[in-house]
């Protein structure tokens, strides 16, 4: 373990051709940026879809200018049809969960920074790495293609519950080719993630530079490593599930379709399948997936918090153990999505228990973050603000988990906006805050230029307040029993809730518009930002020991030797209150 083999020589020389450099690049840094770029496109697309949804929910019969251009069938006269709402819902959820939350914090930042943080020149398998991105990119194109077929994207939600997703066109628009494209896209996505996860694991285990013991890995690398282990198992289950779904749809098998279903007056030619099988396979992936989104964000935020607080966390080891515990437990809780699905009711209690238990490591991590702030010297730059915001929304999303973890309360709350509020807070917003914190923090390294801090702060305040205005009221709607995935609210009991919906929609438009500030800042700073020094945040890990941006082989041929742990903040170092990992200076005296 201490052996930390010297990094293998770079398997490939710096490319000169444009195609090799920017497109089919083997360089982990370019691949990381490609993943990040794909996530950026997806997140804005997903956000625009959510605007259209929020608009339609409040002004149901109003025409949306331009929507007719996007879909003739989906918006006759510009008015969104119920099926088009569901198409947008499916695409919003799929884009956000797969192409944003998995791509950016894990594949994007992970690809760029994991090799640098361990002192390697590249990933273990650069060709696999390139392939994993391009497979993911094709998955994206296949998914987006569904917008351009006459029936539009599928209407079965990001969970694609069978038999709705399995029986084809009888069950509704978008369920013929739209659903095929979805299943193919997600299948490809799984392949990309499996390749990526293997690569991350091999790289972390094999390519650490001299002195980079496991305990000296920065916390973000730990998080990516743990996430790869979760992802390897999770995507390995979703992939066959997608294959079975495709077989049911095109080859006439009946894995998910029982006998005797009459859909639109058509007796389905299937028998013997079980809809619950899809739910088990999907959620066996689906629950770990939320940790695939959130664990890297936890790692990134911890990493940034230490650099902002100018002191280490109370105990990083406790955080590692908690993250591993979360990863492990995440495979035992999938049934909490199925309390009311007709499983044996005893199993609900069985799944409820680990679900409640998993809140313990999550609480420990949160309390470590908050507790570590005590006695800190917090620097409130933009990445720090987003990291602190992350802690706040993670708490908000976590406490609502207590409700949903209890089968007896799930009887009332399942299928309502409470769930929408819960997962947007704990998975959506929290992970997005992690991504934004990471972006403001690492942008100087990735581009060689600083982002504008004032614009960053404006962006933070609008976003932080905005997300609470959008997603907190979702919980209130849930308490009132407002069902989710409704394209219009026609039920009598929902009418008094419409003003609250209007408030949410307006908050969503404003918060969404605030993201344009971010986009502007990103693009402006890329070309016109102040040049970034090597180590603008006075941080310790190896990415700050090289130039901004790093050279092709990351350290310019230097052989990095690691002498220190990753969290030496608040110490008397040669250059300030910190010691870089590769600094030759001696270990400071223990204790304080």
């Amino acid at each position, binding site marked *: 373990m201490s052996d930390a083999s010297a990094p293998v020589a770079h398997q490939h020389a710096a490319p000169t051709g444009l195609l090799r450099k920017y497109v089919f690049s083997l360089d982990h840094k370019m691949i990381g940026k490609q993943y990040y770029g794909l996530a950026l496109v997806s997140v804005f697309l997903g956000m625009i879809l959510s605007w259209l949804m929020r608009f339609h929910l409040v002004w149901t019969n109003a025409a949306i200018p331009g929507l007719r251009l996007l879909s003739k069938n989906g918006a006759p006269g510009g008015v969104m049809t119920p099926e088009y709402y569901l198409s947008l819902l499916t695409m919003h959820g799929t884009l956000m969960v797969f192409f944003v939350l998995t791509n950016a914090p894990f594949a994007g930042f992970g690809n760029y920074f994991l090799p640098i943080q361990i002192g390697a020149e590249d990933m273990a398998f650069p060709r696999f790495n390139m392939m994993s991105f391009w497979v993911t990119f094709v998955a994206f194109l296949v998914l987006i293609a569904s917008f351009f077929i006459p029936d539009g994207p599928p209407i079965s939600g990001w969970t694609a519950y069978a038999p709705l997703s399995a029986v084809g066109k009888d069950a509704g628009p978008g369920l013929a080719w739209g659903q095929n494209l979805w299943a193919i896209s997600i299948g490809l996505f799984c392949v990309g993630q499996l390749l990526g996860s293997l690569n991350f694991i091999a790289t972390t285990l094999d390519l650490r530079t001299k002195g980079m013991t496991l305990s000296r890995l920065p916390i973000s690398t730990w998080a990516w490593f743990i996430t790869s282990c979760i992802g390897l198992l999770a995507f390995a289950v979703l992939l066959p599930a997608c294959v079975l779904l495709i077989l049911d749809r095109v080859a006439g098998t009946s894995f998910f379709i029982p006998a005797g279903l009459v859909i639109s007056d058509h007796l389905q030619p299937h028998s013997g399948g079980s809809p619950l099988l899809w739910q088990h396979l999907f959620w066996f992936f689906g629950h770990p997936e939320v940790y695939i989104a959130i664990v890297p964000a936890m790692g990134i935020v911890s990493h940034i918090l230490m650099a902002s607080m100018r002191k280490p966390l109370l105990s990083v080891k406790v955080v590692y153990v908690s993250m591993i515990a979360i990863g492990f437990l995440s495979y035992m809780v999938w049934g909490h999505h199925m309390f009311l699905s007709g499983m044996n009711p005893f199993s609900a209690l069985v799944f409820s228990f680990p679900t409640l238990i998993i809140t313990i490591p999550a609480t420990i991590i949160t309390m470590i973050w908050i507790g570590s702030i005590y006695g800190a010297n917090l620097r409130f730059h933009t990445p720090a603000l987003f990291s602190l915001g992350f802690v706040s929304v993670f708490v908000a999303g976590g406490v609502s988990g207590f409700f949903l973890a209890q089968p007896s309360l799930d009887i009332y709350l399942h299928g309502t906006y409470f769930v929408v509020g819960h997962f947007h807070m704990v998975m959506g917003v929290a992970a997005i805050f992690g991504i934004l914190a990471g972006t403001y923090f690492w942008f100087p390294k990735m581009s060689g230029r600083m982002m504008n801090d004032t614009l960053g702060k404006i962006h933070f305040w609008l976003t932080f307040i905005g997300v609470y205005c959008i997603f907190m009221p979702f919980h209130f709607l849930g308490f009132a029993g407002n069902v989710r995935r409704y394209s219009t609210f*026609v039920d009598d009991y929902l009418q008094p809730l419409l003003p609250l919906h209007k408030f949410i929609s307006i908050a969503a438009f404003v918060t969404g518009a605030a993201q344009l500030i971010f986009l502007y800042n990103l693009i402006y700073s890329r070309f016109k930002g102040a040049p970034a020094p090597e180590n603008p945040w006075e941080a310790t890990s190896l990415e700050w020991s090289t130039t901004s941006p790093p050279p092709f082989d990351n350290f310019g041929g230097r052989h990095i030797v690691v002498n220190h742990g990753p969290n030496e903040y608040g110490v008397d170092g040669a250059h300030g209150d910190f010691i870089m990992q590769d600094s030759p200076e001696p270990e400071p005296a223990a204790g304080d």
Partner: protein
Amino acid sequence: MQLSKSCTATLTALTFAAIVTAAPGGGTVTGKVTYTGTPAKPKPIDMAKEPSCAKQYTTPLMTENVVTGSGNTLEYVVVYISAGAPDESSAPSTAVTFDQKGCHYTPHVLAFQVNQELKVTNSDQTSHNIHPLAKINREWNKSQPPGTPPISEKYDKPEFISVKCNIHPWMHGWFAVVKTSHYAVSDGSGEFKLPNLPPGKYTLTAWHESYGTQTQEVTISGNETKSANFVFTAKPY
């Protein structure tokens, strides 16, 4: 099969078409559709789930699978020339309209020609999805929110197409797509009339959604009016 037949008849078809348009007048077939036996009673439709529709009825709307009149007459029987007449090569330029009002299709059975424009309108305050379950033609399924423009569609092959709204499962109607301009749907007193038939020998087909089809031959010469009646056997269930 129908297709090859129509190919061989193309030449005569064109001639006949010319005659039909050139010389209205011609012969007429009229008749009455009746049944024997006991038909099922129409059942009341409970629209509780859609209050905006339910409140339009003081007495409940009844099912229309079998609609009878006094004297054992049958409504909504499509009577058309299935053989003998030329296939119409061009569809009329007027569109037919299928309206949704009070969560109910009017008319219950809409007959029109291959390639004729079909307009579906929504006069309700609620969304409907129009889902014609075509098996030979292309199947489609579209929602129509209130206040949106009519849906315009065409069918290019003859077929009896069951139409449903999934949002309101009781809503049910038929498209009778025929390839002749000589068709009629029997009215409330079971009567139908096919005017303007050039002289010739024809096969007349009557189609009822629950009781199937019947055919008979008629020969028309000159301007005569022939009568052709159909009698279906009703079933109680």
